[in-house]
């Protein structure tokens, strides 16, 4: 029996860890869970977690999840009351949201109008500027494609070329001088088409050594808008977030309040409802600029859930069901510190090359304060068909140094054998004195590249590992017995 009237069955239009995570809440609330899955994901953890799985097809696995019509057809056929789009894929596609609603299915997200207004980089900046919210200089292509390159150059270098239609830093190009601009524009455009099916791009000034601070917004259809605190997502590699935490370290309460209130202001002015995140760039001098708004649930939402004790997916479902949220801003408190590490199938010691392989052994860390949100299972083969992120390791502790210690321990205790991951790289970041001091900014990783290099093995350590390998090696063990006696005992004797 569903605990949310009107939502008996929800179809998840996504895959991997977020599908598993959403299912957890659905099942807790007694709501039937359904999933669309490409053949690649047929045996996945998510497919096994939900109540029903329905196949979808596409030229590539990713394209299947981008095929909105197929998903809606499934939802109608199985009588789903709502579709949860997760993050990425079609979660910020207003046309898709509209089609879902038109099909008589609830959309677990904001209205298509707010998605258009706020989800589109260019539109959102125009809207937010009108509210008096500070922005970084920018230029949008669609205003006048012919003069775009010139206007982009006037934004001032260094600048970023980004896709308008989606966030997550996908396809973003950083340009430091005019000569690199034309190529960056082309690259960003083709990435925009590939990831979001929308070729529109825009240029924006790049603030050096900024911090990336975002605010979690939750709003219902009864005019209530709440913020659930901020998150610092500065530690990134090539614009992909790697480590997120809340609260933002060293953020003055006054500044925190200002940023959060700006976020609420924006959401309220846009008549936003459901979950969303307003992202800001925080300059070293304390200035902050609106970056973008993500009109969906974010990857790093667990850190907010751990410190506030609020299940964001549950709140999303309630908003979608038309409920008035039983929250009050004054009582939303943040307790302790939560840190999330994104475990990816990448070889951090070799240029972050994507890694593949069968997960021969998979044992996530567990224990008080540890939350492991993964979509992987032992025996699964990791391929390059999808995003390299395997799981999120999230910890919650009393204070930041305890949280860091716990995160390091959890990374060390997590055993993933068969596919290389960035676990030790994440641990090295957490161990870095600058990180521990809270001096994070988006250039953290390149700035500290040298000190983030792995230490070489000491001689004794190397010998132990070689011994372990040899004693596990079938050939070695078989032929270790092959030198007959007395030869084996005589060793390398010569006459």
């Amino acid at each position, binding site marked *: 029996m569903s605990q949310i009237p009107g939502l008996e069955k929800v179809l998840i239009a996504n895959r991997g860890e977020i599908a598993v995570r959403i299912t957890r809440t659905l099942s807790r609330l007694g709501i039937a869970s359904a999933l669309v899955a490409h053949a690649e994901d047929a045996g996945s953890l998510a497919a096994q977690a939900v109540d029903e799985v329905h196949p979808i097809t596409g030229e590539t696995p990713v394209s299947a999840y981008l095929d909105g019509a197929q998903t809606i057809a499934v939802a109608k056929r199985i009588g789903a009351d709502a579709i949860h789009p997760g993050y990425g894929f079609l979660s910020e596609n207003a046309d898709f949201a509209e089609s879902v609603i038109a099909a008589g299915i609830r959309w677990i997200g904001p209205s298509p109008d707010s998605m258009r207004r706020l989800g589109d980089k260019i539109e959102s900046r125009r809207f937010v500027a009108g509210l008096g919210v500070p922005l970084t200089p920018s230029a949008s292509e669609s205003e006048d494609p012919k003069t775009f390159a010139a206007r982009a150059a006037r934004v001032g270098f260094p600048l970023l070329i980004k896709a308008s239609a989606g966030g997550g830093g996908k396809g973003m190009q950083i340009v430091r001088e005019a000569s690199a601009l034309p190529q960056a524009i082309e690259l960003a455009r083709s990435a925009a088409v590939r990831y979001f099916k929308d070729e529109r791009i825009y240029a924006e000034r790049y603030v050096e050594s900024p911090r990336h601070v975002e605010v979690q917004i939750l709003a219902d259809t009864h005019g209530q808008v709440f913020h659930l605190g901020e998150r610092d997502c500065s530690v990134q590699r090539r614009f992909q977030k790697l480590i997120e935490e809340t609260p933002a370290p060293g953020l003055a309460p006054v500044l925190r309040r200002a940023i959060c209130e700006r976020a609420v202001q924006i959401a309220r002015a846009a008549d936003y409802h459901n979950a969303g995140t307003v992202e800001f760039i925080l300059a070293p001098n304390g200035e902050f600029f609106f970056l973008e708004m993500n009109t969906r649930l974010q990857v790093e939402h667990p850190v907010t859930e751990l410190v506030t004790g609020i299940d964001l997916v549950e709140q999303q479902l309630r908003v979608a069901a038309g409920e008035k949220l039983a929250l009050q801003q004054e009582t939303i408190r943040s307790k302790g510190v939560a840190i999330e590490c994104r475990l990816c199938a990448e070889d951090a010691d070799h240029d972050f090359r994507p890694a593949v392989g069968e997960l021969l052994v998979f*044992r996530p860390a567990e224990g008080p304060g540890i939350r492991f949100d993964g979509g992987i299972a032992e025996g699964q083969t990791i391929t390059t068909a999808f995003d390299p992120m395997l799981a999120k390791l999230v910890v919650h502790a009393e204070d930041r140094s305890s949280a860091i210690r716990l995160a390091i321990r959890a990374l060390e205790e997590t055993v993933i*054998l068969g596919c290389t991951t960035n676990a*030790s790289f994440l641990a090295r970041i957490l161990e870095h004195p600058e990180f521990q001091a809270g001096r994070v900014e988006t250039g953290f990783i390149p700035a500290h590249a040298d000190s983030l290099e792995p230490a070489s093995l000491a001689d004794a350590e190397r010998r132990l*590992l*070689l011994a372990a390998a*040899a004693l596990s090696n079938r*050939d070695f063990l078989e032929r270790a017995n092959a030198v007959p006696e007395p030869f084996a005992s005589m060793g390398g004797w010569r006459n």
Partner: protein
Amino acid sequence: MGYDFCLEGRDSRVTPAGSALEIDGRRLDASLERGLHAGEYFIVVDGRREKLFIATRHDVHFIHWRGRTRHVEAWNALDRARQAAIRAGGAEEIRAPMPGVVISVAIESGTTVERGALLLTIESMKLQTAITATHPARVTEVCVAPGDHFDQGSPLVRLEALDAASEESRKS
């Protein structure tokens, strides 16, 4: 019997020495026992007992020990020697294994091919044969065209061997 393993880009040789091991010429007393859980082991080295996780697939041993995961690759000396020979090699010629006719040509001069890539298809005695590249190479000359008849031993394609290492980087 010495066995060669590669760890962190460096090679080492491990030889059984009675009940112990010899690693790069130095003796080490080591033994391995299974733990309770899948993949869990205990290694006893010089009297010290330590827990680790090991999983093996196709000559690669993945080992999680003291909080870090590494992999050790067992390699075959003969394969390495062959690859070295190919690197050192250079120009080579693929000649027709028997008389026949060229059905189709899949490459042209200047094409870079991976191991196993199709070069051309020939037909002889009502049987079609695919001529493929045996290692990464660059095509320097295509000696025939579709429809050409040839004798046994006639040159079909000329290639220049490429470094095996560059094949790796091209794949990723």
